[in-house]
């Protein structure tokens, strides 16, 4: 089958792909484009491991069809670091040991990036509320919250 031709911008690069109607954007990113940062935890919108930013909105890519992305701007975790230079959030996740198995981490990073873009100075409660759509089965969340708080301080000063 020929598939649907879709033209998008992914992490700043114009990207075109063919996909089937019933393929999710998560599957397209991972299986067709080799962007395996976003993970499939649940496939039902519950865990946030598949989080990406679509036209400035943080979304679960497991509930978006690849075909829907026509003309949209996509940001994934792969776009956060510049070469060897990690994004402040990535650096702070490392320093605070805010990950164990790492499955949830790309989702948390992109969700935290979106959160700080909209609210550069969040309270702990706002961080916890903002990241409630991202589940982690390892860390107990505390280190993640500390990492985001710390990153916010650095990023505000930058």
């Amino acid at each position, binding site marked *: 089958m020929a598939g*649907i031709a879709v033209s998008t911008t992914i992490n700043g690069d114009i990207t075109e792909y063919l996909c089937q*109607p*019933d393929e*999710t954007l998560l599957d397209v990113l991972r299986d067709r484009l080799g962007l395996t940062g976003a993970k499939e935890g649940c*496939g*039902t*919108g519950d865990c*946030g491991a598949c*989080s990406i930013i679509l036209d400035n*909105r*943080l*979304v*679960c890519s*497991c*509930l*978006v*069809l690849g*075909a*829907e992305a*026509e*003309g949209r701007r996509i940001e994934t975790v792969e776009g956060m670091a510049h070469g060897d230079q990690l994004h402040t959030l990535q650096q702070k996740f490392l320093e605070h040991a805010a990950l164990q198995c790492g499955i949830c981490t790309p989702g948390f990073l992109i*969700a935290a990036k*979106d*959160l700080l873009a909209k609210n550069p100075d969040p309270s702990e409660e706002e961080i*916890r*509320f*903002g*990241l*409630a*759509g*991202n589940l982690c089965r390892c860390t107990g969340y505390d280190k993640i919250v500390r990492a985001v708080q710390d990153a916010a301080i650095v990023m505000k000063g930058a």
Partner: protein
Amino acid sequence: MRDFSYLRATSTDAARQAAALPGAMLLAGGTTLIDLAKCGVAEPDTLVDITHLKGLDRIAVDERGATIGALARMGHVADHADIKSRFPAISEALWQAASAQIRNMATIGGNLMQRTRCPYFRDPANFAACNKRVSGSGCSAIGGVTRGHAVLGTSEACIAMYPGDLATALVAFDATVHLGERKLLVDDFFLLPGTTPDREHAIEPGEMITAIAIPGSAAARRSTYLKIRDRQSYEFAAASAAVGIEFEADGRTIRDLRVALGGVATKPWRVRAVEDALKGKVLEPETVRAASLLAVEGAVDHGANHYKIELAPRVVARAILKLGETA
């Protein structure tokens, strides 16, 4: 997911026509539809993507009320300054729903059409009996695990709970659903299960939700949405209440009161009995608590969901008393 074809609608009329064909469904935020397609509950032949339509996401608020386009996202509406100030219960209901991701995706039109979270309904591979999915097939929940099921508005055919937060607030403030020219009160838009639980909304093939409208009122301005759930965020309601109040000039006597329940009924549940019992009365904790018991008149439990019958009146009373404090 079963194979389907994908169509991007270029106009509202084209979307309506395409979705009127058998097997076709409108696709908005996809947070209900793609989810249900994955578990085999929704089996569309064609998805008609309406998210690229322009102008259907507008939010307009003035003295007379608010009109919210069907494609406005939950998060956008929750965060709208005039919705927050004139309809706090609407904003709070949306803020307390789902997660940032889901609120960024889900639309107001799709929200009204969301389906029950009944686990038997969502699991056709393991539970063939579900009257909501297949009329006449039976109900796997009755006699099963019922902790999340409804205690109000149930029938012998179905006891599924309506899980939405927004519509609970909408029904309290006499909102209407716009299906193009046709307008329906939210209360009439949602149907009781009766003998036809497969039919949940008074929407006909070829119709599409274009907007919702909420009349402005003093009670809407002084309103709140209280949601009690198993964890503090990102969970459906165990019981919730949308409440709005207007006092007489003395600041104590209740002139107008609106009360609706979520998480306990088969549809968004307006409780006029509580409203009528308290209108004209002075707001006192005992009076409010006694009247709130009327919220669950006629409730029937199925074992594990009995707690909802005790919880719901307390949620109503707490919400009303909270609004009294902010005098």
